């Protein structure tokens, strides 16, 4: 069952309009070439719209809505291939909301609502999707403080983030700890080359970084963080899939070969219909996942719904990107064709937190 209220429909309209105006697809390459981590004016507009505080309680300066209400925003952004620190920051806020102390929440959540950028650093070098497989360690010192040591990979927007939430092991047990960017040197950040050129991804070295006990979160729940991340990434992917379909349909309706529009050839028409049905499927599973999350369904129902969405999105978006290249013929092989932007985004997203095969493995346990 999918539930979608009038309010959510309005947010979807607003988000679509905003993203189309602020980030036309024709400007994606300019954003890549500019090389800057973000556009401050665009970011401020998003702050003013309240998007940074969607799931943050009103008592901490947010809008006090549900995280699932952010799904239409990420979908609209994905359609335009936007990349802003909104994803990283929303997920960091989510970790604080779920696992932080009152003090930590009141320190950081109002700042995040007002536009402070934050990021969760959880991935390590072995590419393991198991969030509990951590080598970074938090070691107690004689003075009652801690030191953090370890290397985190694929950390989003690290150059502009003011605070990181880092997963580590403390005496063998996993913990989250807060690290302010002020305690890091610029030499500790290294921009990574990732397949999706719109993304700003970093390797961050945490070498003997001092961490106060006040900055260790009282709880460390990887599962809800993983679920929240997958839900928002799948939403972005749903938008991306709709975007690549639009590009393909447009080309099939304009490009002629052998004196006929290429969309009249069934060899292209039929797989494009498959793309359409894939897009409809992914969107259905994404809004189903949002419904399960918002309605606070049982843990297994939420996990099933979200893994279904990530599974279908991974499979369908990467396939649509792949076919999108092929259907553009020789032009598709060039850097100038927009299809490559979508394929690269699809591949980046596919490998976040588990591709379709990984999700099916997990779903088998949930289904049977």
């Amino acid at each position, binding site marked *: *069952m*999918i539930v*979608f209220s009038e309010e*959510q*429909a309005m947010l*979807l*309209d607003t988000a679509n309009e905003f993203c189309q105006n602020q980030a036309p697809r024709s400007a994606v390459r300019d954003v890549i070439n500019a090389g800057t981590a973000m556009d401050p004016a665009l970011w401020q507009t998003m702050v003013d719209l309240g998007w940074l505080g969607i799931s943050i309680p009103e008592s901490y300066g947010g809008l006090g809505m549900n995280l699932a209400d952010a799904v239409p925003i990420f979908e609209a952004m994905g359609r335009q291939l936007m990349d802003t620190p909104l994803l990283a920051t929303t997920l960091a806020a989510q970790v604080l909301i779920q696992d932080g102390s009152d003090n930590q929440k009141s320190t950081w959540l109002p700042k995040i609502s007002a536009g402070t950028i934050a990021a969760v650093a959880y991935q390590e070098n072995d590419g393991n999707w198991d969030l509990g497989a951590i080598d970074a360690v938090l070691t107690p010192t004689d003075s009652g403080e801690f030191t953090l040591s370890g290397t985190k990979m694929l950390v989003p927007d690290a150059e502009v983030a003011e605070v990181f939430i880092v997963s580590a092991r403390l005496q063998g047990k996993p913990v989250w700890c807060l690290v302010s960017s002020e305690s890091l040197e610029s030499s500790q950040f290294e921009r990574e080359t990732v397949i999706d050129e719109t993304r700003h991804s970093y390797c961050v070295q945490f070498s003997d970084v001092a961490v106060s006990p006040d900055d260790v979160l009282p709880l460390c729940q990887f599962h809800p963080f993983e679920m929240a991340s997958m839900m928002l990434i799948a939403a972005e992917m749903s938008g991306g899939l*709709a975007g690549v379909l639009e590009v393909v*349909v447009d080309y*099939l*309706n304009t490009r002629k070969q052998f004196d*006929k*529009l290429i*969309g*009249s*050839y*069934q060899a292209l*028409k*039929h797989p*494009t*219909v498959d793309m*359409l*049905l894939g897009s*409809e*499927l992914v*969107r*259905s*599973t994404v*809004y*189903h996942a949002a419904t399960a999350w918002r309605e606070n369904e049982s843990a297994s129902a939420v996990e099933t719904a979200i893994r*279904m969405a990530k*599974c*279908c999105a991974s499979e369908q978006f990467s396939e649509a990107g792949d076919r999108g290249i092929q259907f553009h013929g020789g032009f598709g092989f060039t850097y100038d064709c927009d299809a490559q932007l979508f394929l690269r985004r699809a591949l980046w997203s596919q490998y976040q937190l588990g591709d379709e*095969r990984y999700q*099916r*493995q997990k*779903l*088998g346990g949930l*289904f*049977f």
Partner: protein
Amino acid sequence: MNPAEIDEFRVQVRAWLSDNKPADPGFLLPETFMEVGTDQQFEFLRDWQRKVFEAGYLGMSWPEAYGGGGQPQLMQEIVNQEMAVARVPFVPNTIGLNWAGPLILDMGSEADKNRYIKNILSAEDIWCQGFSEPDHGSDLGNAQVRAVKDGDEYVVNGSKIWTSLGSYAKYMILIARTSTEGSNKYAGLSFFLAPMTVSGIDPTPIKKLTGEYGFCQTYFDDARIPADCMLGQEGEGWSVAMKTLMFERGAVGGQAGGLSMMDLNINDIIELARRATRNGQPAIDDPLTRDELTKLVLEARGNGLMGSKAKIPALNQTYPTAVAMSSKLRGSELKRKMTRFALSLQGANGARYISEQAMDGGKWQRSYLNAFSATIGGGTSQIQKNILGERVLGLPKS
């Protein structure tokens, strides 16, 4: 009906079904009303329909004067739901109960209603449909069977195809060409409630890929049909046929109810995967088989979720008709994939066919072969993709 009355009625229906559900007949029953191929199957299903009717559970909302129950439609819906849950056999007279019956009640004469309705419900008179023709599979408007007026009769010549229950039917809803003049191909068509018993009508069974019978090709050779069998006026056949299709597709209410086919869904496949063995272990425990099964569950649940999304206009702005127009394609292709997969769960026994030694008597093998009826009938999957590409995505015609 108030909620307490609804619950009470549901309990009563459930009890009746549990007491009266027929025992396993010891032979394989057909899957749908289109697959009835032997006298044994037909008699068994006709007896079941009679029993359901006598208990008052068919045509519950049809007028009492003609043999119906005169009750709210909701009661029939409850019965239909409970029948699906109890997995009782289907009732065979689907064309009469759900297409011809509502049509006659809607636009037939008083005499028509008195003559036909009660016997439709009791399965005394079986009905069939004469729409498709051998040379015009899906192009109904182009029907070429000729009906020429001669006194108070029409003389009919030509042939119809895919006549389900043709060998058992007493009446046919028939679309025939009464005129070759007219502004367009539709103008010369007329609609008949034709008796199958007059001489010159010969329903010849067609052997299907399953090896069974179930359809006929019906030949008309100077068959003389009384002129008063016409429904609507001469030349109005197309609009009457369209009305029939509305009933057939369930777009308009008024059907007498009952199941028209055996249900087969993903849960049946999961259940089979637990029960069937591959190399000595339950098929579901084999990791590769399990992954394939997971894909099918995703597809099945995905179809359900797409139906749910289609009801929310805000989520269907770009391609508002995509889900509804693809539902036949998705549903029929999934069924084909599921039943094909069911064979692979059975190890070497996947190679068996309808026989005592086969798993469940060979019903899975037969189901797979029968699944093509839906991927081909009503416009093949390939035609569906053309339609979706052109009407939904706006691509140029092929």
